[in-house]
């Protein structure tokens, strides 16, 4: 896809020593993703990523739903930074797009309104007795995978290429709005043509698809989703994207935000149930991967270890296309071999 | 036993006559019997009043034969029509008389007197022969006039004449052959038996001189056959051509004298009127759409023609200003506008539906006087008229209640003209309620369009209906509005709906005469031109309307008057777009003359 201004939006990403702020949602929707993220960085790339059990949710889901006031979230974020400082780290990597958006937003607010920082510092001291140092650099976990994409490419066991025809897989990359649209300079490639996921796909042999509704939001939006009656809004927005990308016959979708990844996957199931329409060439939906899952597949991790069996759009067609072995019988068995139930599948 | 004088050559003639009269009788009988109950009641009472019947007979004679109405409009055209119609009538009458006298018995088959010379070549020619030849010459002169009109209408001062359908052209050619063939037949007959008078005789002598005498009998026989065939052909073509007019006009005149009128919901009387249209084309030139070259095939003659065929399209029915100019010159007096409305109604019935439920929510302010002034929709776009009426009321010390100052319900006439009769009635009913409930005893309006439907369609049980020019004239007459004549000169434009529509010509002129110098334009009163703004025409756009108005304004500017005065808000809007001269409503003129400052 011809791009024009993406090179104007670059940012420096450190090479090592990160404090990992996990995502509260992603551990439920895609538990495997965060686990494999750590394994790839630590085992495959030898990067020091500190996983601290003491850090909490950034409360962004509450803040964006008008439940958590600004002072509270600032104090919680201050605590996260304090934990990071105590753990001896200066760079923070956020697993969730909303967190990343929030950390950037709060740091920018502190920059323009130092008094808010002082207030957060005072609140933290009063509440926990801790003090904090602002992180030197805040990146999103997809930034890191993007940053090491060439090293991952070298270790790749699977290329994003159709082994039979040799044609690069057509991948729809969808970027979380809080990543690039709020602070364009905080994302790789800016808001018009974000390159963070496209970079990975292209380094690993794939090809990204530019469909008309590429920039459109998946519609997740906390308030839209939390109230059941509002869920028609995200569903309709996602459908608009799916309708627009369908003609391009993408092989799979990759996203870097807990909401987008889950809903582009789950809404395909809802649409097929409500309207009887199933996207994707073989009528079984377009598989939706998180970038960690994609990186895991490229590095040869087992699909079930990546937690891909939890997707509502079955991933087998993609795995077969990439000639990745998997054991169908173990699909829904936990580590202890017990049946862990399964989601209703799309198009069956 | 009665002698039938049967000869083979009369067969085509007989066939023609039988077909003609049988078709015609069945048509007319079925139409008349299918007339609505009320019309038939009027017919019954009319038939037994000797005065109306004699009056109708006299009118039939005046119009069907002498075409006096055309005479008043166009002398040459009158001669053409009268020579053909009256000439042929006399030819038949005298022929009958000659045959009866010769055979000394009243029972003479019709074909005998038509082909008298053939039957009795040796009968004494004498006076009858002379008269018959003179009448034949008279008819032939009419025929020549008809041919000239067909190809040179300008000789008759007509810019355009009807372009005929194929059927009419065939009937026309058959008619045009009849009299020359009669002339030839009788002249050849005279060549053999010397049975001709001054015309046929001398021509016969010529044939005898030129042609070998042995060939004369054969040519004579052939010519009589041709004569009979041409008559037969013409009679057969009459029911399906414009010439049905010859026979349809007579019952039309009688029914009309019995007060039967066409209705906007077509009845069989509409069919009779349609049949009575001779497609003479007199209605084409007065039509400003034709004069301005806007539409050349939507005039009344073409509408009636299409209606007699498979039915006119709605587009054609819609393309007419309904200004009444053609109706005012139609020699047959056909109610053209009413028929066109009924056509529009019929074409629109299937698709037009209106929902005026909201009308019940419309109320008018409390009445402040027994005299209500209704400015109408157009009136609300010409506020100067209402303002002038307010000033005049103050000056003459009368109270006027301005009914629809803010908003109002349309009087319904535009819908009626478009053929949406039920919708128009819905509006009429609601307005009636509002007017009657308000307790006014006089309803004045500055809009002739509204006044016309108030008078023709509304049931306002006793409320006096006045155009504001009439109201002002009354005030002047009663001395309540004192005014001295100013120096300004006014060229008065008669709005179609006020003039031709309601016959109100004089009151505006009296008013203007009192306040200044009245200038009459070339074409005024019932000849007045339409301003082009008519709501009846649904197809014109602004450019076309301005083209029409430009022609009208030129005539008014020619008078050099200071002001062009009209008494219709629509005319004021249309004319003012197409002239530099100031166009004002009659109320404004009065207010200026009376010099009353705003209330």
């Amino acid at each position: 896809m011809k791009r024009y201004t993406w090179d104007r939006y670059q940012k420096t990403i450190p090479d090592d020593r990160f404090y990992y702020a996990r995502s509260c949602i992603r551990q439920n929707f895609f538990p495997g993703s965060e686990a494999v993220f750590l394994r790839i960085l630590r085992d495959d790339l030898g990067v020091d990523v500190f996983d601290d059990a003491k850090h909490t949710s950034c409360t962004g889901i509450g803040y964006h739903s008008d439940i958590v006031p600004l002072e509270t979230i600032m104090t919680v974020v201050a605590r996260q930074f304090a934990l990071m400082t105590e753990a001896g780290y200066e760079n923070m990597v956020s697993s969730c797009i909303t967190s990343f958006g929030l950390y950037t937003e709060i740091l920018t607010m502190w920059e323009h309104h130092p008094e808010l920082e002082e207030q957060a510092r005072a609140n933290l001291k009063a509440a926990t007795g801790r003090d904090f140092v602002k992180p030197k650099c805040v990146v999103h976990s997809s930034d890191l995978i993007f940053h090491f994409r060439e090293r991952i490419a070298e270790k790749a066991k699977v290329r994003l290429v159709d082994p039979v025809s040799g044609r690069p897989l057509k991948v729809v990359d969808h970027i979380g709005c809080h990543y690039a649209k709020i602070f364009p300079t905080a994302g790789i490639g800016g808001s018009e043509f974000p390159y963070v996921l496209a970079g990975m796909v292209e380094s690993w042999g794939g090809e990204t698809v530019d469909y008309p509704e590429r920039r459109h939001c998946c519609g997740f939006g906390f308030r839209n989703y939390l109230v059941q009656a509002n869920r028609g809004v995200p569903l309709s927005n996602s459908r608009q994207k799916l309708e627009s990308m369908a003609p391009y016959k993408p092989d799979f979708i990759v996203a870097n935000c807990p909401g987008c990844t889950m809903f582009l996957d789950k809404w395909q199931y809802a649409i097929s149930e409500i309207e009887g329409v199933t996207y994707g060439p073989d009528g079984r939906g377009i598989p939706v991967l998180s970038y960690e899952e994609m990186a895991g597949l490229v590095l040869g991790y087992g699909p079930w270890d990546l937690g891909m069996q939890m997707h509502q759009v079955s991933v087998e067609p993609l795995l077969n296309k990439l000639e990745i072995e998997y054991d169908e019988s173990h699909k829904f068995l936990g580590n202890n071999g017990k049946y862990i139930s399964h989601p209703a599948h799309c198009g069956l | 036993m009665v002698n039938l004088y049967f000869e083979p050559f009369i067969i085509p003639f007989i066939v023609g006559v039988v077909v003609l009269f049988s078709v015609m009788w069945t048509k007319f009988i079925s139409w008349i019997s299918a007339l609505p109950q009320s019309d038939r009641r009027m017919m019954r009472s009319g038939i037994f009043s000797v005065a109306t019947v004699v009056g109708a007979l006299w009118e039939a004679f005046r119009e069907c034969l002498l075409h006096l109405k055309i005479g008043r409009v166009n002398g040459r055209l009158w001669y053409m029509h009268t020579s053909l119609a009256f000439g042929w009538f006399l030819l038949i009458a005298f022929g009958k008389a000659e045959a009866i006298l010769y055979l000394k018995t009243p029972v003479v088959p019709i074909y005998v007197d038509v082909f008298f010379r053939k039957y009795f070549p040796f009968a004494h020619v004498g006076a009858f022969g002379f008269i018959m030849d003179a009448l034949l010459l008279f008819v032939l002169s009419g025929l020549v006039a008809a041919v000239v009109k067909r190809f040179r209408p300008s000789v008759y001062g007509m810019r355009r004449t009807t372009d005929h359908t194929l059927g009419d052209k065939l009937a026309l050619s058959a008619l045009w052959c009849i009299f020359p063939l009669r002339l030839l037949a009788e002249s050849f007959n005279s060549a053999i038996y010397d049975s001709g008078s001054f015309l046929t005789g001398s021509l016969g002598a010529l044939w005898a001189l030129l042609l070998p005498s042995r060939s004369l009998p054969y040519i004579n026989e052939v010519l009589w056959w041709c004569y009979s065939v041409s008559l037969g052909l013409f009679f057969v073509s009459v029911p399906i051509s414009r010439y049905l007019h010859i026979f349809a006009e007579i019952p039309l005149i009688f029914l009309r004298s019995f007060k039967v009128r066409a209705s906007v919901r077509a009845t069989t009387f509409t069919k009779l009127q349609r049949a009575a249209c001779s497609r003479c084309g007199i209605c084409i030139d007065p039509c400003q759409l034709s004069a301005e070259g806007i539409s050349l095939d939507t005039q009344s003659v073409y509408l009636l023609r299409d209606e007699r065929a498979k039915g006119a399209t709605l587009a054609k029915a819609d393309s007419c200003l309904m200004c009444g100019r053609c109706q005012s010159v139609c020699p047959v007096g056909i109610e053209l506008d009413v028929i066109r409305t009924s056509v529009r109604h019929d074409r629109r019935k299937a698709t037009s539906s209106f929902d005026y439920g909201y009308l019940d929510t419309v109320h008018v302010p409390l009445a402040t006087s027994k005299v209500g002034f209704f400015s109408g929709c157009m009136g609300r776009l010409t506020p100067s008229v209402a303002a002038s009426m307010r000033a005049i009321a103050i000056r003459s010390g009368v109270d006027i209640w301005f009914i629809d100052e803010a908003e109002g319900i349309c009087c319904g006439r535009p819908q009626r003209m478009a053929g949406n009769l039920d919708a128009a009635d819905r509006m009429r009913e609601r307005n009636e309620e509002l007017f009657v409930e308000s307790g006014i005893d006089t309803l004045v309006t500055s809009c002739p369009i509204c006044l016309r439907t108030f008078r023709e369609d509304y049931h306002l049980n006793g409320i006096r209906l006045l155009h504001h020019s009439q109201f002002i004239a009354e005030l002047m007459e009663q001395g309540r509005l004192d005014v001295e004549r100013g120096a300004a000169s006014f060229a008065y434009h008669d709005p179609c709906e006020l003039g031709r529509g309601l016959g109100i010509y004089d009151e505006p002129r009296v008013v203007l005469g009192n306040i200044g110098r009245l200038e009459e334009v070339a074409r005024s009163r019932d000849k007045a031109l339409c301003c082009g703004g008519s709501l009846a025409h649904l197809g014109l756009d602004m450019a076309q309307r301005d083209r029409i108005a430009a022609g009208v304004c030129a005539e008014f500017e020619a008078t050099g008057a200071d002001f062009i005065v009209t008494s219709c808000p629509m005319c004021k809007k249309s004319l003012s777009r197409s002239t530099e001269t100031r166009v004002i409503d009659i109320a404004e003129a009065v207010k200026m003359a009376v010099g009353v400052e705003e209330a």
Partner: protein
Amino acid sequence: MAAKRVIVIGGGVAGMQAAVALKKQGVTPMLIERDITLGGKLCRWDRLFPSGTRAGEVVSPLVEAISETGIRTVLCGEVSEIVGDDSRVEVMLTDGSSYEAEAAIIATGFDLFDASLKEEYGYGIYPNVVTSVDLEEMFRSGAVVRADGSEPRSVAILHCVGSRDRQAGCGHCSRVCCITGVKQAIELKQLYPGCNVYNFYMDMRMFGSGYEELYKEAQERYRVNFIRGRISECSGTMDSRVLVKAEDTLAGRPLRLTVDMTVLLVGKQAPASNAKFASELGICVSSDGFFKGADCFDGATLTSRRNIFVAGTATGPKNVGESMNEAVAAAIKAAEYVKGLA
């Protein structure tokens, strides 16, 4: 006493007209043009509104007048600096040469807004998104075709691209893009009667005489569709058409439309040299970067430096006629001034 000299910077219609007018005023003009030919932007235009006159018919008479009257012209002359005082001006070019005169008229014209800066319109990204200048050059070459050489069956024309747009950093109205949009819409329909043309506008600013009539003709005769609504973004579709998104503000509803080609009516911007000259010479520019006359009336072509005059689109977006009139005004003022010098 030697004839007074005036240097005219910029060889567009304004510069050429100023030079010719100066000659008539009995002053020795000298024309410096950055490009290899005279004529400025008009060399790239096909036909001019509202009359449809060929651009060449305006440029060539001026070029001939300049050569006939022997006005000294320096082509490929990029001005590096202008120095001097109220009675002398020295214009130094980038190639090191420099010229002296008593006064100077700056007629450096305008720059076209770089449509790629409005990234969301996809200029330079989607093949069938072109600017009004590209379209004008297509009309000149006679090949008005899509990227793949095919005939466009539907075209969207976007008004106000790089004009009246804080996002693009240009808040001013470039005045002539509206009428250009109407002209090009008509030219497209003349070339391809079957093609559907949609103009998306915020306001139709038909300021000049004959413009409103052209607008009416576009509606009535050529059935150009005018949709009131500012396009937010264009996206490429699979068959390299362009999906256009707008709101039809008169219907109060969002609107989607896929067209074969999108034309961006790019606005006029002040050339960078305006700011440079302004600072060097101490003359002022208005907020939109165009030279500001001493006042908007009689002094429209005067500046705070008594021997520096400005004319043409350098003082603000205008049509060709207005530029040439302003050039004559500047020439007369300059001639008056230099003749008054000792």
